[in-house]
């Protein structure tokens, strides 16, 4: 098997070409036998050779009596087979088998109604077993190139000719997608538009250190949730949620498993789906953000195929997200193009039961080939618009919302107390006073408007951002002659307002509190629970970068068998705080 590039020996190349193919008297070029491959230049040169000869030879039926078979342009990279049907009943043309054995340029025939375009894929791949996939008109081309073909130099992965025009019509605008989605390696995607001559696609892959589990094992992971569709996620836990087009949840697995599972949906040869699309055709995410207005119909359907016609070109895509699934309220769509070209202002995009018109300029994106961005093994570097459930993220992760903003999750640290020796220990832990070795009982004061029956409790100053998301705020009714702090259980807080826990002991304020009376928020004010030792209690807070000294105690005062109280103290740092306490009998 020889590869005859453009610079091959002419005599040898032409001889080999003529031996491998037959040129019939009507111009039809067909494969006879052989395993060689040829630059398209040798197609032209071989035809010219036999059309120059006085006599026919071998199985070819062409000689000087026949009209000119072909023309060549651009240093032999654009070959045009000529049609002389009218005058000579000769039409030089090739078929798919012949063109599988050519590379290096384009070949047109049937007066330009049919065309093969040259494709050269440059780059390097990590695994020698890597097989490139090529998508044309939303279909995978049948591979005749295995792990590479016509690799005329060390940087060339593949050189072939791809059918780009048939019966006078371009095949999806001559656009193709080249993919290298090989298990254990990073993924790569390149979109290009073929035409006359030879066009380049660049593909490079490397070992993926976070992808080292057997494919079948990963495909067996259970429970992982895609949660496709537009979602506002409060990644920063600041009460200001931002838009994403999905919300991945590893659900009982872990982030490495999640990253591998997503890759498995898109691996070469897969028939799994992702965003409703066969993973073979998914290139990583939305390829465009489309502002829309004028609507018809009712609702968009997540992951549905949508269509539009742009400049006469029928086009299609997958609906990755809509900011409002009811078309009357939709202002933006995120689409993954499948065929055709991007819509422009005024073009109507249509789904099964809804449509909207484009309103303004379409933003084009190049998705990450792995979809999610990068998983380093310890942190996500998220791709555009890819969201995760809060519990999957840590403070070292970075994600990018649909507005393009980079968001960092807060350092949500855990504070946990593990107790031994008592059945129902009660735990109190609070921020330490700035001077005394005691809790700070007055870190805030009662605000205005705290009337009996209210479902919220308002304090004077903004609540410390390093406050547990739910728990207990304690208030001393000094004005009312209170002799002890009263506990108010809250389920959330924001600004200077606690929302009382409707399922707790104090769903509403039990009395009217007077502005200015002291309050403080406990870090822990609860029972440690569990059927046996150790019994645990925990909470969390968003670490703000400064350590927090805390003090408190663990008590068990059941009159049947009280235990000696145990003072506790420590410092909440970037890793939180964990304490273990043993309660002795008294």
């Amino acid at each position, binding site marked *: 098997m020889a590869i005859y590039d453009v610079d091959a020996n002419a005599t040898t190349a032409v001889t080999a070409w003529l031996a491998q193919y037959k040129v019939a008297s009507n111009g039809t070029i067909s494969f006879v036998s052989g395993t060689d491959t040829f630059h398209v230049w040798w197609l032209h040169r071989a035809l010219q050779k036999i059309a120059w000869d006085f006599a026919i030879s071998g199985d070819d039926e062409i000689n000087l009596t026949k009209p000119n078979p072909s023309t060549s342009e651009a240093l032999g990279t654009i070959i045009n087979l000529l049609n002389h049907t009218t005058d000579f009943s000769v039409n030089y043309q090739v078929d798919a088998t012949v063109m599988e054995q050519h590379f290096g340029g384009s070949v047109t025939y049937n007066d330009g109604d049919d065309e093969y375009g040259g494709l050269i894929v440059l780059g390097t791949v990590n695994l020698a077993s890597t097989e490139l996939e090529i998508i044309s008109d939303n279909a995978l081309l049948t591979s005749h190139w295995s792990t590479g073909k016509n690799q005329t130099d060390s940087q060339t992965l593949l050189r072939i000719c791809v059918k780009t025009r048939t019966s006078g019509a371009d095949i999806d605008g001559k656009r193709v997608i080249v993919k290298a989605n090989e298990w254990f390696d990073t993924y790569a995607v390149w979109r290009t538009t073929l035409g006359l001559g030879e066009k380049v696609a660049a593909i490079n892959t490397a070992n993926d250190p976070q992808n080292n589990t057997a494919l079948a094992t990963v495909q067996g992971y259970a429970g992982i949730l895609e949660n496709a569709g537009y979602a506002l996620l409060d990644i920063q836990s600041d009460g200001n949620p931002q838009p994403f087009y999905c919300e991945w949840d590893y659900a009982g697995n872990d982030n490495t498993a999640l990253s591998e599972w997503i890759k498995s949906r898109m691996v070469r040869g897969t028939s799994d789906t992702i965003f409703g699309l066969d993973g073979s055709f998914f290139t990583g995410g939305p390829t465009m953000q489309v502002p829309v207005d004028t609507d018809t119909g009712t609702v968009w359907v997540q992951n549905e195929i949508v269509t539009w016609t742009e400049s006469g070109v029928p086009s299609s895509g997958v609906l990755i997200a809509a900011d409002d699934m009811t078309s009357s309220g939709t202002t933006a769509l995120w689409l993954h193009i499948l065929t055709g070209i991007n819509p422009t202002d005024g073009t109507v995009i249509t789904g099964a039961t809804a449509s909207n018109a484009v309103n303004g300029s379409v933003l084009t994106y190049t998705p990450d080939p792995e979809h999610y961005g990068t998983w380093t093994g310890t942190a996500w570097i998220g791709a555009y618009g890819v969201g995760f459930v809060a519990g999957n993220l840590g403070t070292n992760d970075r994600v990018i919302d649909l507005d393009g903003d980079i968001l960092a999750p807060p350092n949500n640290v855990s504070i946990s107390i593990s107790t031994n020796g008592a059945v129902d220990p*009660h735990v109190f832990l609070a921020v330490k006073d700035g001077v005394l070795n005691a809790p700070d009982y007055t870190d805030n004061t009662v605000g205005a408007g705290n009337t009996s029956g209210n479902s919220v409790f308002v304090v004077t100053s903004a609540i410390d951002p390093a406050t547990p998301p739910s728990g207990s705020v304690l208030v001393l009714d000094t004005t009312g002659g209170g*002799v*002890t702090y009263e*506990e108010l259980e809250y389920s959330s807080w924001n600004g200077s307002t606690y929302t009382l826990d409707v399922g707790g002991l104090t769903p509403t304020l039990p009395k009217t509190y007077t502005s200015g009376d002291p309050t403080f928020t406990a870090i822990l004010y609860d029972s440690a629970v569990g059927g046996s030792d150790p019994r645990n209690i925990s909470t969390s807070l968003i670490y703000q970068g400064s350590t927090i000294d805390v003090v408190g105690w663990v*008590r068990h005062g059941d009159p049947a068998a009280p235990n000696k109280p145990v003072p506790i103290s420590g410092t909440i740092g970037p890793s939180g705080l964990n304490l273990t306490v043993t309660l002795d009998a008294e």
Partner: protein
Amino acid sequence: MAYSVDYIQKIVTIPAADLAVISGNDYNLDMADFHKEIRRLEWVFNSGLWAIQILDHTIAKLNFAGADYAPFDEIINGYVVQFEAGIERVNLLGSNNNLVDILVYTGVSVVPSNSAGLQVVATGSGVTAQDKIDIANLSRDTILGTETFP
């Protein structure tokens, strides 16, 4: 009825209902009950879980060299104790304690049962230099009267 505690003023109030009547207005307070009730109050969420500890309790020493030694109960951290007014006498039973020291007087005669037994005293006679001066001065005044010498 139960004890009431003003955690702000640090006052523990014990009602007559939580005492054992001897006769009339005379009562006994079993310090074991006192201990348990204080521990309960320190433990519950709607009372004193948030507040600093009231009582330090040293466990009884039982069957030590043939004898059972009573526990110690010490009211700590500035808390004081008062009994309901109208009670004439309360006998504190079952522990050595410092209730008398931190008692808020409400007309109640409190009788502790503290027993020191073997005590730790200073080495030697225990008489300090100041004691010697005071003894000398008192002896002089007793013998010579309280005249002032030039």
